[in-house]
C-alpha cells in the first residue's frame, strides 16, 4: 500500500463536524454579504478569507488523515493540536466573526432564541472577564497542561468521547487566548498594546518550557504509543522528541507573527474605528428562482393528480393482493408490506420534515366529484356532529380493530379496510357538503391534521393587507382556477395546520397570488387551531389526547411483556376472552387513563396556580393544554413507525416480485425467511428512538409553557399551572423510554 493511497483513503466524514463547519460557513457568509454592503471598511474580503481558512484548518485537523495518524504518532497528534490552537483560532478571529454570525442567523431566531442569552448581563460579564489577559492566559495554559497529563491524554487516545472533548477544550481555550490579541471588530480594547507584547512573551516562555519537557525527556510520557504497531521505524521516544520540537517551533510562529503585527500597529496611526449602529437588511433576492420553481411544482394540480392516481393504483394493488394473494407469511403480500411498513413510516417522516403531504395526495378523495355528481350532496352535515367527536370515535375504533384483527398481519382484512374507506368517503362526500369526510370523519386525516402541528411548513396568506382588501374570498369559495378550501378554512384567519389538507386549492384559487407555503416553527401553532375557539370545546382536546395516549398504547402492545400479560389474563378468564382482554386494555389506556389523569392535572394545576386561574373552568384548561402533549405523542409514533420502516425497508422487492410472478410478469422466487436490514435494530435504533422521544418531550414542554402563560396572569402561576402536566408528560416519556428499550414482539410482522 503506497503512502499516498493510504493517506487519500483515510479521510473521514464525521457528520457532526461537517455539519457544524458547513453551518458556520453558511451563516457567516450570509451575514458577511449583508455587512459588506453596509460597512465595507470593516469587512474587506481578506476577513472572509481568514474566517474560511480558519474553518478549513479545523476541517483538516479533524477530518484529514492527520486525525488517524494522531493515534499512531505523537508528532502527528501535536500537529493536529497546533492546527486547532495556533492556526484555526487566530484565523477565525481575524474574520471578525461575531457580527457576521449574528447577522447571518435568521432574524426571528436571533431575537427570540438567542436574544435573551446575548443580553444576559451575567454571561456578558463572564465573557468580558474571561477575555482579559490574565484569565485568558491562565485558562489556555491550564487546558494545555491538563490534557497533556498522561492519564488524561491516554484516556483521549482510547475513547472517542474524551478525544472529542479534548479537541473542543483546546479550540475554546485557544479562542480565549487569541481574543485579546486580535480584538475582533467591534470589540473594545481590553489592554494596551505593550501589555499584549508581555502576554505573548509569557505564552512563548510557557510554550518553550512545555515543549522542551517533551523534547529533552528520556521518559516516554504516553506508553500507548509504544503499543501501537506502525509501518515505519520511528521509536516512540524519538517520536516524542520530534513532537516536542514541532510544538516548540510551530506554536511560537503565530505568537511571533502576532508580536510583529502589534509592533507595526504601535508604530502606525490608530485605526480601530468605533462600531456604529447597524440596520438589519433583507438578504439579496437574486437566487430565489429554484425556490419559485419548487413552489410552482408544488401547486401544480397535474402533479397532485398524478400522485393521487399513483396512490389510487397502489391501493388497488393492495386490495387485489390482499384478497387473492397468500395470507401467510403476510410479508409476501403487498397488503402486509405497503401500508404497515412503508406508508406509515413515510407519512410520519413527511410530517416531521415538511407537512401533511399524505392528505395532499390522498387517493380516497379522487372520487369526490363523481360522488357529488351521482348523489347530489342533498344533506347538510348534522349540527351535532360538526366537531371532532365522530373522528375520535372512529380513530379509537381503528386502534381496537388493529389489535383485535391483527391488521398488520392480515392482508385480507387490510384490503377490506381500504375498500371500506373508499366506500365511506364516496358516500359522505356524495351525500354531504364537500370536505365533510376530511373534516369530521376520516381518522387518517385527523392523525395528520393534529400531528402536522409539529410540521415546519404551513399554507398561509403572504400579506394580511391584501386579504383585508379582498372582497371575493376566493380562497374559501373557489373560482374557475380552483375550488376553494375543502375544509372551510379562511386564509386570513387560518392558524397552523389543523384541518389543512395541504391540497393548495386556496393557493390556486387566490386571484391576488397572496397564498403560499411558508415556514412555521414546529409546535408554534399547537393549541391555536380553528377547533380551539374562544370557548374551546373538548373535541379537539380529546383528539389530541387520543393520538398521544394511542401512540404509547399502540407501541406498547407490540412488546413481549404486554403480549405475555395479555395472554396470562386471557388464559385465566378462559378461552375466547382474547378480544375482551384487548378491548379492556385499550379502554384502560385510551379512555380511563386520560379521563382520570388529564382532569386531575388540570384541577391540581388550577389549585396550585392560585387566584389568577381559580375562575377558569377545568374544561377550558383541559381543552387548552391537551394539545401540548401532541409533540410527545408524535415522537412515539415516529419512533415506532420509523423502527418498522427501517427494519423492514427490504421487504417490498420480495412481495412485489411475488405479486408480479403471480401475474406472470416475472419469474417466481423462493421465499427466504430472513431478517433484512436488521443490523442496526439492536444497537443504534434504541438510541435514535430515545433522541426522538427526548425532542418530543422538549417541544411539548415549550408548547405547554406557552399555553400556560396565555392562561395564567404571571410566570409563577403559569409554572404552577403547568407543573402537573409536566409530571404527566414525564410519565409518558418514561413509559416511552421503557417501550423502546424492550425487545419488540413482532407478532408476524417482518422486521
Amino acid at each position, binding site marked *: 500500500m503506497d503512502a499516498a493511497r493510504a493517506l487519500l483513503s483515510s479521510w473521514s466524514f464525521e457528520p457532526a463536524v461537517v455539519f457544524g463547519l458547513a453551518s458556520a460557513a453558511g451563516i457567516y457568509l450570509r451575514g458577511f454579504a449583508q455587512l459588506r454592503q453596509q460597512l465595507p471598511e470593516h469587512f474587506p474580503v481578506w476577513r472572509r478569507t481568514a474566517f474560511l481558512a480558519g474553518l478549513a484548518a479545523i476541517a483538516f485537523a479533524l477530518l484529514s488523515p492527520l*486525525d488517524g495518524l494522531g493515534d499512531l504518532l505523537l508528532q502527528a497528534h501535536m500537529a493536529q493540536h497546533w492546527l486547532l490552537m495556533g492556526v484555526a483560532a487566530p484565523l477565525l478571529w481575524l474574520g471578525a466573526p461575531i457580527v457576521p454570525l449574528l447577522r447571518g442567523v435568521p432574524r426571528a431566531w436571533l431575537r427570540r432564541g438567542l436574544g435573551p442569552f446575548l443580553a444576559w448581563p451575567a454571561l456578558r460579564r463572564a465573557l468580558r472577564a474571561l477575555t482579559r489577559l490574565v484569565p485568558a492566559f491562565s485558562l489556555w495554559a491550564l487546558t494545555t497542561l491538563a490534557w497533556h497529563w498522561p492519564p488524561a491524554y491516554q484516556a483521549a487516545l482510547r475513547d472517542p468521547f474524551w478525544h472529542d472533548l479534548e479537541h473542543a477544550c483546546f479550540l475554546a481555550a485557544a479562542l480565549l487566548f487569541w481574543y485579546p490579541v486580535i480584538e475582533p471588530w467591534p470589540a473594545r480594547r481590553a489592554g494596551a498594546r505593550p501589555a499584549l507584547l508581555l502576554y505573548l512573551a509569557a505564552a512563548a516562555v510557557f510554550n518553550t518550557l512545555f515543549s522542551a519537557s517533551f523534547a529533552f525527556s528520556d521518559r516516554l510520557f504516553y506508553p500507548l504509543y509504544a503499543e501501537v504497531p506502525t509501518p515505519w521505524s520511528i521509536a516512540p521516544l524519538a517520536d516524542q522528541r520530534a513532537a516536542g520540537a514541532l510544538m516548540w517551533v510551530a506554536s511560537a510562529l503565530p505568537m511571533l507573527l502576532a508580536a510583529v503585527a502589534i509592533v507595526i500597529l504601535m508604530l502606525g496611526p490608530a485605526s480601530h474605528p468605533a462600531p456604529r449602529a447597524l440596520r438589519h437588511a433583507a438578504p439579496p433576492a437574486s437566487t430565489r428562482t429554484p425556490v419559485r420553481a419548487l413552489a410552482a411544482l408544488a401547486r401544480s394540480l397535474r402533479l397532485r393528480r398524478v400522485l393521487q392516481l399513483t396512490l389510487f393504483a397502489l391501493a388497488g394493488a393492495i386490495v387485489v393482493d390482499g384478497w387473492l394473494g397468500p395470507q401467510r407469511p403476510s410479508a409476501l403480500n403487498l397488503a402486509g408490506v405497503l401500508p404497515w411498513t412503508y406508508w406509515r413510516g413515510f407519512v410520519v417522516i413527511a410530517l416531521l420534515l415538511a407537512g401533511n403531504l399524505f392528505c395532499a395526495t390522498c387517493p380516497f378523495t379522487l372520487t369526490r366529484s363523481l360522488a357529488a355528481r351521482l348523489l347530489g350532496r342533498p344533506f347538510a352535515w348534522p349540527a351535532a356532529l360538526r366537531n371532532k367527536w365522530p373522528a375520535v370515535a372512529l380513530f379509537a375504533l381503528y386502534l381496537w380493530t388493529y389489535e383485535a384483527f391483527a391488521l398488520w398481519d392480515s392482508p385480507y382484512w387490510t384490503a377490506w379496510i381500504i375498500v371500506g374507506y373508499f366506500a365511506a368517503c364516496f358516500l359522505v362526500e356524495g351525500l354531504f357538503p364537500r370536505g365533510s369526510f376530511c373534516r369530521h370523519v376520516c381518522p387518517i386525516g385527523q392523525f395528520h391534521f393534529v400531528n402536522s402541528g409539529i410540521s415546519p411548513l404551513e399554507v398561509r396568506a403572504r400579506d394580511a393587507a391584501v386579504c383585508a382588501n379582498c372582497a371575493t374570498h376566493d380562497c374559501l369559495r373557489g373560482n374557475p382556477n380552483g375550488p376553494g378550501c375543502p375544509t372551510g378554512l379562511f386564509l386570513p384567519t387560518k392558524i397552523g395546520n389543523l384541518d389543512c389538507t395541504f391540497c393548495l386549492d386556496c393557493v390556486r384559487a387566490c386571484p391576488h397570488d397572496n397564498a403560499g407555503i411558508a415556514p412555521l416553527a414546529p409546535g408554534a401553532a399547537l393549541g391555536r387551531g380553528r377547533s380551539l375557539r374562544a370557548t374551546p370545546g373538548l373535541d379537539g382536546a380529546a383528539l389530541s389526547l387520543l393520538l398521544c395516549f394511542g401512540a404509547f398504547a399502540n407501541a406498547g402492545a407490540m412488546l413481549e411483556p404486554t403480549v405475555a400479560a395479555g395472554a396470562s389474563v386471557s388464559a385465566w378468564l378462559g378461552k375466547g376472552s382474547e378480544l375482551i382482554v384487548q378491548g379492556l386494555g385499550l379502554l384502560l389506556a385510551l379512555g380511563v387513563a386520560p379521563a382520570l389523569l388529564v382532569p386531575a392535572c388540570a384541577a391540581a394545576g388550577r389549585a396550585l396556580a392560585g387566584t389568577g386561574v381559580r375562575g377558569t373552568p377545568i374544561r377550558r384548561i383541559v381543552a387548552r393544554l391537551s394539545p401540548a402533549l401532541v409533540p410527545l405523542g408524535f415522537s412515539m409514533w415516529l419512533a415506532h413507525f420509523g423502527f418498522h420502516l427501517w427494519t423492514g425497508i427490504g421487504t417490498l422487492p420480495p412481495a412485489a416480485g411475488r405479486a408480479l410472478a403471480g401475474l406472470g410478469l416475472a419469474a417466481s422466487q423462493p421465499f427466504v425467511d430472513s431478517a433484512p436490514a436488521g443490523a442496526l435494530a439492536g444497537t443504534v435504533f434504541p438510541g435514535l428512538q430515545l433522541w426522538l422521544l427526548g425532542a418530543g418531550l422538549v417541544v411539548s414542554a415549550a408548547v405547554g409553557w406557552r399555553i400556560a402563560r396565555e392562561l395564567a396572569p404571571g410566570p409563577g402561576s403559569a409554572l404552577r399551572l403547568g407543573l402537573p402536566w409536566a409530571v404527566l408528560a414525564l410519565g409518558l416519556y418514561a413509559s416511552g423510554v421503557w417501550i423502546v428499550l424492550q425487545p419488540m414482539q413482532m407478532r408476524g410482522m417482518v422486521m
Partner: protein
Amino acid sequence: MRALLRTALAVIALLALPEASRADLGALVADGTAGPYRVSVLVAPTPLRVGRSRWSVLVQDASGGAVEDAEVTLSWTAEGNGARHVERAAREDAEVTPSRNAAGHGAHHVERAARPGVHPFYLSSEADLPTATRWRVAARVRGPKGTGALAFDALVSPGLGTWRTHWPALLTPFLALGLFALHQSLRQRARRTGT
C-alpha cells in the same frame, strides 16, 4: 423558506455521505505471524464489550513495511450460551448466523471483510458481538506473497447496561429543558426591566 430548503438539503447531503467516521484505534489484542506476514489487530472500545466494536488490522511484510493490496477477512465465533441467545442475535443482527457446532451447541459466527478506514495503512471492520463470552477471532490475509491466518481469543465483557449506553440521549432533553427555562427567565427579566 430558502434557508429551510438549504438546511434540509445540507442534512440530506450529510446523511448520504459515506459511512466512514472518526474512531480511535483502541488497544492491541493480537500481534503475530500469519504466513509470510506480520499481523497486528487492535480493537476499540477497551475493554471490549457486548455491542459494536471496531477492529483495525495492520499487515506488514518481513521488512516491516505495510503490505500493498492485502485483503483481510475477520471472523468471530462464539460457542454455547444456548439457543435463545443465538436466535436473538440472529434477529438483531442480520450478519450473525445461528448454527450448530459438532457437539450440537448453539454457535455465533460473524464474518466481515476489513477495508481501509480512517487510520492510514490500517484496514478496519466493525462487528456487533451480541454475547459476553470468549470469542475466537481469526484474521485471514491474502496478499501478493501468499495467504496466512492469525487466530486468537478475545474476551467480550458484558455491555455497559441500558443507562450507561444511552445516557447522552436520556440526559440531553433535560439539559435542553434547563436551557429553555433559563431562556424564558431571561426573557421575563428583560420584559420587566424593559431592555
